[in-house]
């Protein structure tokens, strides 16, 4: 089992109603599994699947990225800086 720290920003934080979650997941879980957990917390997440990006330890990653113990996983809605 691994523990990962999920950070949520902007509208993703509004959907989750929190800015961070700690998840315990089976070994070799993927970023996509984090999305499944979020969808179970709030089914509204499913609508935004195509728009959300994920970062692990401050780098964007594809959804099949394998997670490791203590990874920081950020849920990143469309950015709007500038």
């Amino acid at each position, binding site marked *: 089992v691994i523990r990962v720290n999920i950070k949520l920003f902007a509208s993703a934080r509004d959907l989750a109603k929190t800015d961070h979650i700690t998840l315990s997941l089976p070994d070799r879980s993927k970023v996509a599994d984090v999305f499944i957990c979020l969808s179970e917390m709030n089914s509204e997440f499913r609508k935004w699947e195509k*728009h959300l990006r994920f970062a692990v330890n*401050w*780098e964007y990653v594809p959804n099949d990225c394998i997670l490791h113990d203590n990874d920081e996983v*950020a849920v*990143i*809605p*469309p*950015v*709007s800086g*500038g």
Partner: protein
Amino acid sequence: VIEIVSTSIDVQQVLQSVEDPSVGGINMFIGTTRNHSNGKAVVALEYEAYAPMALKMMHRIADEAKAKFRITAISIVHRAGRVEIGEASVVIAVSSSHRKEGFEACRYAIDALKKDVPIWKKEFFANGEIRGQQQNDSGGL
């Protein structure tokens, strides 16, 4: 200089950070907060940053700009927190021997920042409504 700051950006200081006697010019982009959005009056904005990742990406954009264009120095400074109307939300300065590379690198940096740096804008409207910018772009989120 690569920074995220919570108070007014000192534009003169960003300019000075790229000055060099060897350069032929300095190109700056100053993004400012506008007082309207989708036809409605905006009274203030707030920027939220995932600071450690945003800074890492801003450093990478600066490195890429240096690798792609013949420039001497580049600085990128972005605001976080509440920003009043008309204030600078982002300042990019590029010094280079020749203007073409300066313009190109400056444009590259602001485009890359807007696409990938994890910073979010929230608009506060005169009618009391509050909206995350991404609600415009992707239809609700």
